[in-house]
Protein backbone atom coordinates (compact mmCIF):
# COMPACT_ATOMS: atom_id res chain seq x y z
CA UNK A 1 0.00 0.00 0.00
CA UNK A 2 1.30 3.39 -1.02
CA UNK A 3 1.58 6.11 1.53
CA UNK A 4 -0.06 9.39 0.71
CA UNK A 5 3.34 10.93 0.25
CA UNK A 6 4.28 8.47 -2.44
CA UNK A 7 0.97 8.98 -4.17
CA UNK A 8 1.48 12.71 -4.16
CA UNK A 9 4.93 12.27 -5.60
CA UNK A 10 3.65 10.02 -8.36
CA UNK A 11 0.97 12.51 -9.27
CA UNK A 12 3.46 15.32 -9.39
CA UNK A 13 5.72 13.24 -11.60
CA UNK A 14 2.84 12.50 -13.89
CA UNK A 15 1.96 16.16 -14.12
CA UNK A 16 5.54 17.08 -14.92
CA UNK A 17 5.85 14.40 -17.56
CA UNK A 18 2.68 15.51 -19.41
CA UNK A 19 3.90 19.05 -19.25
CA UNK A 20 7.24 17.94 -20.63
CA UNK A 21 5.52 15.99 -23.34
CA UNK A 22 3.42 18.96 -24.35
CA UNK A 23 6.48 21.15 -24.35
CA UNK A 24 8.33 18.68 -26.55
CA UNK A 25 5.37 18.36 -28.88
CA UNK A 26 5.17 22.13 -29.19
CA UNK A 27 8.83 22.32 -29.95
CA UNK A 28 8.57 19.54 -32.48
CA UNK A 29 5.69 21.24 -34.25
CA UNK A 30 7.53 24.51 -34.27
CA UNK A 31 10.59 22.99 -35.86
CA UNK A 32 8.46 21.19 -38.40
CA UNK A 33 6.85 24.47 -39.35
CA UNK A 34 10.22 26.18 -39.59
CA UNK A 35 11.58 23.38 -41.74
CA UNK A 36 8.56 23.55 -44.05
CA UNK A 37 8.87 27.31 -44.38
CA UNK A 38 12.54 27.06 -45.22
CA UNK A 39 11.83 24.40 -47.83
CA UNK A 40 9.00 26.48 -49.24
CA UNK A 41 11.38 29.41 -49.69
CA UNK A 42 14.51 27.65 -50.86
CA UNK A 43 13.26 24.86 -53.11
CA UNK A 44 11.93 27.18 -55.85
CA UNK A 45 15.23 29.06 -56.02
CA UNK A 46 17.23 25.85 -56.15
CA UNK A 47 14.94 24.59 -58.92
CA UNK A 48 15.59 27.71 -60.96
CA UNK A 49 19.31 27.24 -60.60
CA UNK A 50 18.96 23.55 -61.36
CA UNK A 51 17.11 24.18 -64.61
CA UNK A 52 19.71 26.67 -65.74
CA UNK A 53 22.45 24.06 -65.34
CA UNK A 54 20.67 20.84 -66.35
CA UNK A 55 20.91 19.02 -69.65
CA UNK A 56 17.64 19.19 -71.66
CA UNK A 57 16.82 15.50 -71.16
CA UNK A 58 16.43 16.19 -67.41
CA UNK A 59 13.88 18.91 -67.87
CA UNK A 60 11.85 18.34 -70.97
CA UNK A 61 10.35 15.06 -69.84
CA UNK A 62 7.08 14.03 -68.27
CA UNK A 63 8.79 13.19 -64.98
CA UNK A 64 11.66 15.56 -64.27
CA UNK A 65 14.04 14.46 -61.50
CA UNK A 66 14.42 16.74 -58.49
CA UNK A 67 18.19 16.51 -58.32
CA UNK A 68 20.73 17.55 -60.89
CA UNK A 69 21.52 14.46 -62.94
CA UNK A 70 23.36 15.75 -65.96
CA UNK A 71 25.18 18.90 -65.05
CA UNK A 72 26.05 21.37 -67.78
CA UNK A 73 27.10 25.00 -68.12
CA UNK A 74 25.89 24.99 -71.72
CA UNK A 75 22.86 27.24 -71.26
CA UNK A 76 24.90 29.88 -69.49
CA UNK A 77 27.61 29.68 -72.12
CA UNK A 78 25.07 29.84 -74.91
CA UNK A 79 23.38 32.90 -73.48
CA UNK A 80 26.69 34.67 -72.96
CA UNK A 81 28.04 33.65 -76.35
CA UNK A 82 24.88 34.62 -78.24
CA UNK A 83 25.44 38.14 -76.96
CA UNK A 84 21.80 39.19 -76.77
CA UNK A 85 22.30 39.72 -73.08
CA UNK A 86 24.83 42.54 -73.21
CA UNK A 87 22.58 45.31 -74.49
CA UNK A 88 19.80 44.70 -71.91
CA UNK A 89 22.37 44.22 -69.16
CA UNK A 90 24.03 47.52 -69.98
CA UNK A 91 20.70 49.28 -70.31
CA UNK A 92 19.43 47.93 -66.98
CA UNK A 93 22.64 48.91 -65.24
CA UNK A 94 22.73 52.43 -66.64
CA UNK A 95 19.07 53.11 -65.94
CA UNK A 96 19.21 51.69 -62.42
CA UNK A 97 22.30 53.71 -61.57
CA UNK A 98 20.81 56.96 -62.81
CA UNK A 99 17.59 56.22 -60.95
CA UNK A 100 19.52 55.58 -57.73
CA UNK A 101 21.53 58.80 -58.01
CA UNK A 102 18.64 61.02 -59.11
CA UNK A 103 16.34 59.39 -56.57
CA UNK A 104 18.58 60.44 -53.68
CA UNK A 105 19.28 63.87 -55.14
CA UNK A 106 15.59 64.66 -55.48
CA UNK A 107 14.15 62.83 -52.48
CA UNK A 108 16.73 63.51 -49.77
CA UNK A 109 16.44 67.32 -49.60
CA UNK A 110 12.67 67.08 -49.75
CA UNK A 111 12.63 64.42 -47.05
CA UNK A 112 14.79 66.63 -44.83
CA UNK A 113 12.33 69.48 -45.11
CA UNK A 114 9.38 67.17 -44.56
CA UNK A 115 10.94 65.63 -41.49
CA UNK A 116 11.43 69.08 -39.93
CA UNK A 117 7.80 70.11 -40.52
CA UNK A 118 5.34 70.23 -37.62
CA UNK A 119 3.99 66.79 -36.86
CA UNK A 120 0.52 66.92 -38.33
CA UNK A 121 1.58 68.66 -41.55
CA UNK A 122 4.38 66.16 -41.94
CA UNK A 123 1.91 63.34 -41.60
CA UNK A 124 -0.33 64.88 -44.24
CA UNK A 125 2.48 65.44 -46.72
CA UNK A 126 3.81 61.92 -46.26
CA UNK A 127 0.37 60.45 -46.68
CA UNK A 128 -0.18 62.50 -49.84
CA UNK A 129 3.12 61.33 -51.32
CA UNK A 130 2.51 57.80 -50.24
CA UNK A 131 -1.01 57.75 -51.63
CA UNK A 132 0.42 58.04 -55.14
CA UNK A 133 1.22 54.37 -54.66
CA UNK A 134 -2.49 53.71 -54.77
CA UNK A 135 -2.68 54.63 -58.44
CA UNK A 136 -2.36 51.56 -60.62
CA UNK A 137 0.85 51.54 -62.57
CA UNK A 138 -0.90 50.55 -65.77
CA UNK A 139 -3.01 53.69 -65.39
CA UNK A 140 0.08 55.90 -65.12
CA UNK A 141 2.11 54.01 -67.69
CA UNK A 142 -0.54 54.43 -70.37
CA UNK A 143 -0.55 58.26 -70.61
CA UNK A 144 3.19 58.29 -69.96
CA UNK A 145 3.69 55.98 -72.90
CA UNK A 146 1.39 58.09 -75.10
CA UNK A 147 3.23 61.26 -74.10
CA UNK A 148 6.68 59.73 -74.48
CA UNK A 149 5.84 58.54 -77.98
CA UNK A 150 5.14 62.16 -78.83
CA UNK A 151 8.32 63.38 -77.13
CA UNK A 152 10.44 60.65 -78.71
CA UNK A 153 11.40 59.20 -75.33
CA UNK A 154 10.24 55.65 -75.98
CA UNK A 155 13.15 53.22 -76.13
CA UNK A 156 15.51 55.76 -74.60
CA UNK A 157 17.28 55.51 -71.28
CA UNK A 158 16.07 58.96 -70.27
CA UNK A 159 12.44 57.97 -70.70
CA UNK A 160 12.89 54.86 -68.63
CA UNK A 161 14.76 56.73 -65.88
CA UNK A 162 11.91 59.25 -65.65
CA UNK A 163 9.33 56.48 -65.53
CA UNK A 164 11.21 54.56 -62.85
CA UNK A 165 11.53 57.69 -60.76
CA UNK A 166 7.72 57.80 -60.62
CA UNK A 167 7.80 54.52 -58.80
CA UNK A 168 10.90 55.13 -56.72
CA UNK A 169 10.52 58.69 -55.43
CA UNK A 170 7.55 58.23 -53.07
CA UNK A 171 9.20 55.21 -51.50
CA UNK A 172 12.47 57.06 -51.23
CA UNK A 173 10.88 60.16 -49.69
CA UNK A 174 9.16 57.95 -47.17
CA UNK A 175 12.30 56.10 -46.15
CA UNK A 176 14.50 59.19 -46.10
CA UNK A 177 12.03 61.04 -43.89
CA UNK A 178 12.40 58.19 -41.42
CA UNK A 179 16.17 58.59 -41.61
CA UNK A 180 16.11 62.31 -40.98
CA UNK A 181 13.62 61.83 -38.16
CA UNK A 182 16.18 59.66 -36.41
CA UNK A 183 18.63 62.57 -36.37
CA UNK A 184 17.64 64.72 -33.39
CA UNK A 185 16.96 68.36 -34.03
CA UNK A 186 18.98 69.13 -30.90
CA UNK A 187 22.15 68.12 -32.68
CA UNK A 188 21.57 70.76 -35.32
CA UNK A 189 20.76 73.34 -32.70
CA UNK A 190 23.92 72.43 -30.82
CA UNK A 191 25.87 73.04 -34.02
CA UNK A 192 24.17 76.41 -34.42
CA UNK A 193 25.06 77.33 -30.85
CA UNK A 194 28.66 76.36 -31.56
CA UNK A 195 28.72 78.94 -34.33
CA UNK A 196 27.84 77.06 -37.48
CA UNK A 197 25.47 78.72 -39.88
CA UNK A 198 22.49 76.75 -41.16
CA UNK A 199 24.30 75.43 -44.24
CA UNK A 200 27.26 74.26 -42.20
CA UNK A 201 25.01 72.56 -39.71
CA UNK A 202 23.41 70.70 -42.58
CA UNK A 203 26.66 69.77 -44.28
CA UNK A 204 28.71 68.90 -41.22
CA UNK A 205 26.14 67.41 -38.87
CA UNK A 206 23.06 66.19 -40.69
CA UNK A 207 24.68 64.98 -43.89
CA UNK A 208 27.28 62.66 -42.33
CA UNK A 209 24.69 61.22 -39.97
CA UNK A 210 22.24 60.52 -42.77
CA UNK A 211 24.86 58.95 -45.06
CA UNK A 212 24.01 55.39 -44.06
CA UNK A 213 20.33 55.96 -44.63
CA UNK A 214 20.94 57.61 -47.97
CA UNK A 215 23.16 54.76 -49.08
CA UNK A 216 20.53 52.23 -48.09
CA UNK A 217 17.84 54.25 -49.81
CA UNK A 218 19.76 54.64 -53.03
CA UNK A 219 20.54 50.94 -53.13
CA UNK A 220 16.84 50.23 -52.70
CA UNK A 221 16.15 52.58 -55.61
CA UNK A 222 18.71 50.76 -57.66
CA UNK A 223 17.04 47.45 -56.93
CA UNK A 224 13.56 48.77 -57.65
CA UNK A 225 14.69 50.03 -61.01
CA UNK A 226 16.67 46.88 -61.79
CA UNK A 227 13.58 44.74 -61.13
CA UNK A 228 11.04 47.10 -62.66
CA UNK A 229 8.74 45.54 -65.21
CA UNK A 230 5.52 47.46 -65.82
CA UNK A 231 6.89 50.78 -67.06
CA UNK A 232 9.61 48.97 -68.97
CA UNK A 233 7.09 46.83 -70.80
CA UNK A 234 5.20 49.97 -71.83
CA UNK A 235 8.28 51.92 -72.82
CA UNK A 236 10.65 49.38 -74.34
CA UNK A 237 9.82 48.37 -77.87
CA UNK A 238 13.12 47.61 -79.56
CA UNK A 239 15.72 47.89 -76.80
CA UNK A 240 14.64 46.06 -73.69
CA UNK A 241 15.88 45.87 -70.14
CA UNK A 242 16.91 42.61 -68.55
CA UNK A 243 13.49 41.77 -67.01
CA UNK A 244 11.78 42.41 -70.35
CA UNK A 245 14.31 40.24 -72.14
CA UNK A 246 13.63 37.48 -69.64
CA UNK A 247 9.91 37.90 -70.24
CA UNK A 248 10.56 37.69 -73.99
CA UNK A 249 12.14 34.27 -73.58
CA UNK A 250 9.29 33.17 -71.31
CA UNK A 251 6.84 34.16 -74.06
CA UNK A 252 8.79 32.11 -76.54
CA UNK A 253 8.56 29.14 -74.20
CA UNK A 254 12.31 28.75 -74.02
CA UNK A 255 12.97 27.25 -70.60
CA UNK A 256 16.72 27.22 -70.54
CA UNK A 257 17.32 30.68 -71.86
CA UNK A 258 14.70 32.15 -69.54
CA UNK A 259 16.21 30.26 -66.61
CA UNK A 260 19.71 31.48 -67.41
CA UNK A 261 18.48 35.05 -67.87
CA UNK A 262 16.53 34.82 -64.63
CA UNK A 263 19.67 33.70 -62.81
CA UNK A 264 21.71 36.55 -64.28
CA UNK A 265 18.96 38.94 -63.30
CA UNK A 266 18.85 37.64 -59.74
CA UNK A 267 22.55 37.36 -58.88
CA UNK A 268 23.26 41.09 -58.43
CA UNK A 269 20.03 41.52 -56.50
CA UNK A 270 20.85 38.67 -54.14
CA UNK A 271 24.29 40.07 -53.41
CA UNK A 272 22.99 43.58 -52.81
CA UNK A 273 20.08 42.43 -50.67
CA UNK A 274 22.32 40.31 -48.55
CA UNK A 275 24.64 43.21 -47.92
CA UNK A 276 21.67 45.44 -47.26
CA UNK A 277 19.91 43.17 -44.86
CA UNK A 278 20.85 45.10 -41.77
CA UNK A 279 19.21 48.18 -43.19
CA UNK A 280 16.17 46.28 -44.35
CA UNK A 281 15.52 45.21 -40.78
CA UNK A 282 13.08 47.26 -38.90
CA UNK A 283 14.66 50.68 -38.54
CA UNK A 284 14.51 52.21 -41.97
CA UNK A 285 11.26 50.66 -43.05
CA UNK A 286 9.40 51.18 -39.82
CA UNK A 287 10.87 54.63 -39.34
CA UNK A 288 7.96 56.09 -41.23
CA UNK A 289 5.51 54.11 -39.14
CA UNK A 290 6.49 55.58 -35.83
CA UNK A 291 4.55 58.78 -35.88
Amino acid at each position, binding site marked *: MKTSEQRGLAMAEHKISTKLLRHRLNRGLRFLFIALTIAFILVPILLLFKISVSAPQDILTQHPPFLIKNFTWNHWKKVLAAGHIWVPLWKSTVVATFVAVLGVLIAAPAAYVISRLPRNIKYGVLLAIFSTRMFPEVG*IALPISVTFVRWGLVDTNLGLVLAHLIKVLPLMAWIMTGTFDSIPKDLEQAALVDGCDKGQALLKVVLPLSMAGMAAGSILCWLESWNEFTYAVYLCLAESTLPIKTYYYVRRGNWFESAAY*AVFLTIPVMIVTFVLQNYLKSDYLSGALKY
Partner: protein
Amino acid sequence: MVLPLILFVLGFTLVPVLQCIFFSFQDQITGEFPTLGNYREIVGSRKFGEALKNTLLVTLIGLSLEMSVGMMVALLLTTKHKFRGIFRAITMIPMGVPTVVSGVIMLYIFSTNGYLNEFLYRIGLIQLPIDWANGGFRTLSMVAFADMWKVTPLVIVLLLSGLESIPTTVYEASAIDGASRRQNFFYITLPLIKPFFTIALILRAIDAFRIFELPMVLAGRNTMFLGTYAYSEYFDYNNIHTSGAASTILMVVIAIFVFGYIGMVGSREVEQ
Protein backbone atom coordinates in the same frame (compact mmCIF):
# COMPACT_ATOMS: atom_id res chain seq x y z
CA MET B 1 14.20 71.93 -51.42
CA VAL B 2 10.88 70.14 -51.64
CA LEU B 3 10.14 71.69 -55.01
CA PRO B 4 11.78 69.14 -57.35
CA LEU B 5 9.98 66.27 -55.63
CA ILE B 6 6.61 68.02 -55.65
CA LEU B 7 7.00 69.07 -59.29
CA PHE B 8 7.98 65.59 -60.31
CA VAL B 9 5.10 63.97 -58.47
CA LEU B 10 2.67 66.50 -59.94
CA GLY B 11 4.00 66.29 -63.48
CA PHE B 12 4.69 62.59 -63.73
CA THR B 13 2.09 61.06 -61.46
CA LEU B 14 -0.87 63.34 -60.95
CA VAL B 15 -1.06 64.64 -64.52
CA PRO B 16 -0.84 61.14 -66.05
CA VAL B 17 -3.51 59.88 -63.69
CA LEU B 18 -5.82 62.73 -64.72
CA GLN B 19 -4.94 62.08 -68.36
CA CYS B 20 -5.80 58.45 -67.89
CA ILE B 21 -9.19 59.37 -66.46
CA PHE B 22 -9.64 61.84 -69.31
CA PHE B 23 -8.91 59.13 -71.92
CA SER B 24 -11.44 56.88 -70.27
CA PHE B 25 -14.23 59.44 -70.71
CA GLN B 26 -13.23 60.41 -74.25
CA ASP B 27 -15.02 59.09 -77.30
CA GLN B 28 -12.89 56.65 -79.27
CA ILE B 29 -13.58 58.16 -82.69
CA THR B 30 -14.80 61.72 -82.34
CA GLY B 31 -12.71 62.59 -79.29
CA GLU B 32 -15.75 64.15 -77.70
CA PHE B 33 -15.05 64.46 -73.96
CA PRO B 34 -17.58 63.37 -71.44
CA THR B 35 -18.94 60.07 -72.64
CA LEU B 36 -19.56 56.79 -70.92
CA GLY B 37 -19.17 54.81 -74.15
CA ASN B 38 -15.87 53.19 -73.15
CA TYR B 39 -17.20 52.06 -69.82
CA ARG B 40 -20.31 50.70 -71.48
CA GLU B 41 -18.12 48.82 -73.92
CA ILE B 42 -15.83 47.13 -71.40
CA VAL B 43 -18.40 46.48 -68.70
CA GLY B 44 -20.48 44.71 -71.31
CA SER B 45 -17.59 42.46 -72.40
CA ARG B 46 -17.17 39.07 -70.79
CA LYS B 47 -13.40 39.41 -70.74
CA PHE B 48 -13.57 42.43 -68.48
CA GLY B 49 -16.02 40.77 -66.10
CA GLU B 50 -13.66 37.83 -65.80
CA ALA B 51 -10.71 40.16 -65.21
CA LEU B 52 -12.52 42.01 -62.44
CA LYS B 53 -13.61 38.79 -60.78
CA ASN B 54 -10.12 37.30 -61.04
CA THR B 55 -8.53 40.40 -59.55
CA LEU B 56 -10.86 40.43 -56.56
CA LEU B 57 -10.51 36.70 -55.97
CA VAL B 58 -6.73 36.64 -56.25
CA THR B 59 -6.52 39.52 -53.81
CA LEU B 60 -8.76 37.71 -51.37
CA ILE B 61 -6.89 34.40 -51.59
CA GLY B 62 -3.47 36.00 -51.66
CA LEU B 63 -4.08 38.36 -48.78
CA SER B 64 -5.51 35.74 -46.45
CA LEU B 65 -2.58 33.42 -47.19
CA GLU B 66 0.03 36.12 -46.84
CA MET B 67 -1.30 37.68 -43.67
CA SER B 68 -1.85 34.40 -41.84
CA VAL B 69 1.44 32.80 -42.84
CA GLY B 70 3.27 36.08 -42.35
CA MET B 71 1.84 36.33 -38.84
CA MET B 72 2.85 32.77 -37.98
CA VAL B 73 6.40 33.21 -39.20
CA ALA B 74 6.73 36.59 -37.50
CA LEU B 75 5.59 35.05 -34.22
CA LEU B 76 8.11 32.23 -34.64
CA LEU B 77 10.81 34.78 -35.25
CA THR B 78 10.16 36.45 -31.92
CA THR B 79 10.54 33.28 -29.86
CA LYS B 80 14.13 32.56 -29.02
CA HIS B 81 15.71 29.43 -30.39
CA LYS B 82 18.94 28.29 -31.91
CA PHE B 83 18.12 28.83 -35.57
CA ARG B 84 16.48 32.21 -35.27
CA GLY B 85 19.22 34.19 -37.01
CA ILE B 86 19.56 31.91 -39.99
CA PHE B 87 15.81 31.40 -40.21
CA ARG B 88 15.29 35.13 -40.33
CA ALA B 89 17.90 35.53 -43.05
CA ILE B 90 16.28 32.79 -45.12
CA THR B 91 12.78 34.20 -44.82
CA MET B 92 14.01 37.45 -46.33
CA ILE B 93 15.44 35.83 -49.47
CA PRO B 94 12.35 36.06 -51.72
CA MET B 95 12.30 39.80 -51.18
CA GLY B 96 15.54 39.91 -53.15
CA VAL B 97 14.19 37.90 -56.05
CA PRO B 98 12.87 40.08 -58.88
CA THR B 99 9.15 39.57 -59.43
CA VAL B 100 9.68 38.48 -63.02
CA VAL B 101 12.10 35.84 -61.83
CA SER B 102 9.67 34.58 -59.21
CA GLY B 103 7.16 34.30 -62.03
CA VAL B 104 9.64 32.32 -64.11
CA ILE B 105 10.33 30.01 -61.18
CA MET B 106 6.65 29.39 -60.58
CA LEU B 107 6.24 28.70 -64.29
CA TYR B 108 8.61 25.76 -63.93
CA ILE B 109 6.86 24.54 -60.83
CA PHE B 110 3.31 24.80 -62.13
CA SER B 111 3.77 23.80 -65.78
CA THR B 112 2.19 20.51 -66.83
CA ASN B 113 5.54 18.73 -66.73
CA GLY B 114 6.62 20.86 -63.81
CA TYR B 115 7.77 20.00 -60.35
CA LEU B 116 4.52 20.32 -58.45
CA ASN B 117 2.86 17.76 -60.68
CA GLU B 118 5.93 15.54 -60.37
CA PHE B 119 5.84 15.85 -56.59
CA LEU B 120 2.14 15.04 -56.42
CA TYR B 121 2.72 12.10 -58.77
CA ARG B 122 5.55 10.71 -56.68
CA ILE B 123 3.62 10.80 -53.43
CA GLY B 124 0.80 9.13 -55.29
CA LEU B 125 -1.87 11.81 -55.21
CA ILE B 126 -2.34 12.15 -58.95
CA GLN B 127 -1.86 9.91 -61.96
CA LEU B 128 -2.18 12.39 -64.79
CA PRO B 129 -0.56 15.83 -64.75
CA ILE B 130 -2.79 18.79 -63.87
CA ASP B 131 -2.87 21.79 -66.18
CA TRP B 132 -2.59 24.62 -63.67
CA ALA B 133 -2.70 27.46 -66.18
CA ASN B 134 -5.95 26.21 -67.63
CA GLY B 135 -8.05 28.94 -66.07
CA GLY B 136 -10.53 29.04 -63.25
CA PHE B 137 -9.80 28.63 -59.58
CA ARG B 138 -6.64 26.60 -60.17
CA THR B 139 -4.95 29.37 -62.08
CA LEU B 140 -6.02 31.91 -59.50
CA SER B 141 -4.53 29.86 -56.68
CA MET B 142 -1.37 29.47 -58.72
CA VAL B 143 -1.02 33.23 -59.14
CA ALA B 144 -1.92 33.83 -55.49
CA PHE B 145 0.65 31.26 -54.41
CA ALA B 146 3.35 32.84 -56.58
CA ASP B 147 2.48 36.25 -55.20
CA MET B 148 2.59 34.89 -51.67
CA TRP B 149 6.02 33.39 -52.16
CA LYS B 150 7.38 36.71 -53.29
CA VAL B 151 5.78 39.16 -50.86
CA THR B 152 5.26 37.38 -47.54
CA PRO B 153 8.73 38.56 -46.38
CA LEU B 154 7.52 42.15 -46.53
CA VAL B 155 4.52 41.23 -44.38
CA ILE B 156 6.88 39.45 -41.98
CA VAL B 157 9.16 42.49 -41.71
CA LEU B 158 6.27 44.82 -40.99
CA LEU B 159 4.58 42.52 -38.48
CA LEU B 160 7.89 41.72 -36.83
CA SER B 161 8.66 45.37 -36.25
CA GLY B 162 5.24 45.54 -34.64
CA LEU B 163 5.87 42.51 -32.46
CA GLU B 164 9.26 43.82 -31.40
CA SER B 165 7.73 47.11 -30.37
CA ILE B 166 5.67 45.39 -27.65
CA PRO B 167 7.51 45.75 -24.36
CA THR B 168 8.11 42.46 -22.52
CA THR B 169 6.68 43.97 -19.34
CA VAL B 170 3.21 43.67 -20.84
CA TYR B 171 3.65 39.91 -21.09
CA GLU B 172 5.12 39.74 -17.61
CA ALA B 173 2.01 41.45 -16.28
CA SER B 174 -0.27 39.08 -18.15
CA ALA B 175 1.72 36.10 -16.85
CA ILE B 176 1.09 37.28 -13.30
CA ASP B 177 -2.61 37.48 -14.11
CA GLY B 178 -2.40 33.89 -15.33
CA ALA B 179 -3.18 34.45 -18.99
CA SER B 180 -2.89 31.48 -21.33
CA ARG B 181 -0.95 31.68 -24.56
CA ARG B 182 -4.11 31.95 -26.57
CA GLN B 183 -5.35 34.81 -24.40
CA ASN B 184 -1.96 36.45 -24.74
CA PHE B 185 -2.22 36.33 -28.49
CA PHE B 186 -5.80 37.53 -28.89
CA TYR B 187 -5.98 40.08 -26.10
CA ILE B 188 -2.46 41.48 -26.06
CA THR B 189 -0.42 40.78 -29.17
CA LEU B 190 -3.10 41.30 -31.78
CA PRO B 191 -4.50 44.60 -30.46
CA LEU B 192 -1.01 46.00 -29.89
CA ILE B 193 0.24 45.30 -33.40
CA LYS B 194 -2.97 46.41 -35.07
CA PRO B 195 -1.44 49.53 -36.67
CA PHE B 196 1.34 47.44 -38.18
CA PHE B 197 -1.17 44.87 -39.31
CA THR B 198 -3.24 47.58 -40.97
CA ILE B 199 -0.25 49.04 -42.78
CA ALA B 200 0.86 45.61 -43.98
CA LEU B 201 -2.63 44.72 -45.11
CA ILE B 202 -3.20 47.98 -46.99
CA LEU B 203 0.21 47.89 -48.67
CA ARG B 204 -0.31 44.32 -49.71
CA ALA B 205 -3.89 44.84 -50.86
CA ILE B 206 -2.87 47.74 -53.11
CA ASP B 207 -0.17 45.65 -54.74
CA ALA B 208 -2.44 42.64 -55.03
CA PHE B 209 -5.12 44.61 -56.84
CA ARG B 210 -2.48 45.99 -59.19
CA ILE B 211 -1.00 42.57 -59.84
CA PHE B 212 0.61 42.61 -63.27
CA GLU B 213 3.94 40.87 -63.73
CA LEU B 214 2.99 37.48 -62.35
CA PRO B 215 -0.14 37.09 -64.52
CA MET B 216 1.86 38.30 -67.52
CA VAL B 217 4.42 35.58 -66.98
CA LEU B 218 2.24 32.83 -65.52
CA ALA B 219 -1.27 33.04 -66.80
CA GLY B 220 -0.63 34.15 -70.36
CA ARG B 221 -3.63 35.57 -72.13
CA ASN B 222 -6.16 33.04 -70.87
CA THR B 223 -6.67 34.43 -67.41
CA MET B 224 -6.92 38.18 -67.40
CA PHE B 225 -6.61 40.50 -64.44
CA LEU B 226 -7.48 44.19 -64.44
CA GLY B 227 -3.84 45.17 -64.94
CA THR B 228 -3.19 42.77 -67.76
CA TYR B 229 -6.56 43.63 -69.29
CA ALA B 230 -5.62 47.30 -69.44
CA TYR B 231 -2.28 46.34 -70.97
CA SER B 232 -3.85 44.11 -73.56
CA GLU B 233 -6.41 46.75 -74.58
CA TYR B 234 -3.53 49.12 -75.28
CA PHE B 235 -1.02 46.79 -76.88
CA ASP B 236 -3.25 44.30 -78.65
CA TYR B 237 -6.05 46.62 -79.72
CA ASN B 238 -4.23 49.94 -79.55
CA ASN B 239 -7.17 51.41 -77.69
CA ILE B 240 -6.10 53.97 -75.10
CA HIS B 241 -9.69 54.72 -74.16
CA THR B 242 -10.81 51.28 -72.99
CA SER B 243 -7.39 50.73 -71.42
CA GLY B 244 -7.79 53.98 -69.54
CA ALA B 245 -11.29 52.99 -68.47
CA ALA B 246 -10.03 49.67 -67.09
CA SER B 247 -7.25 51.47 -65.19
CA THR B 248 -9.73 53.97 -63.80
CA ILE B 249 -11.97 51.17 -62.56
CA LEU B 250 -8.95 49.53 -60.95
CA MET B 251 -8.14 52.83 -59.28
CA VAL B 252 -11.68 53.05 -57.94
CA VAL B 253 -11.54 49.48 -56.63
CA ILE B 254 -8.32 50.24 -54.75
CA ALA B 255 -9.68 53.49 -53.37
CA ILE B 256 -12.88 51.80 -52.18
CA PHE B 257 -10.88 49.12 -50.42
CA VAL B 258 -8.37 51.42 -48.76
CA PHE B 259 -10.84 54.04 -47.58
CA GLY B 260 -13.40 51.42 -46.68
CA TYR B 261 -10.87 49.57 -44.56
CA ILE B 262 -9.56 52.69 -42.88
CA GLY B 263 -13.11 53.82 -42.23
CA MET B 264 -13.94 50.44 -40.77
CA VAL B 265 -11.02 49.98 -38.39
CA GLY B 266 -10.94 53.68 -37.59
CA SER B 267 -8.28 56.03 -38.89
CA ARG B 268 -6.71 56.37 -35.47
CA GLU B 269 -4.69 53.22 -35.81
CA VAL B 270 -3.27 54.30 -39.12
CA GLU B 271 -2.24 57.63 -37.73
CA GLN B 272 -0.24 55.99 -35.00
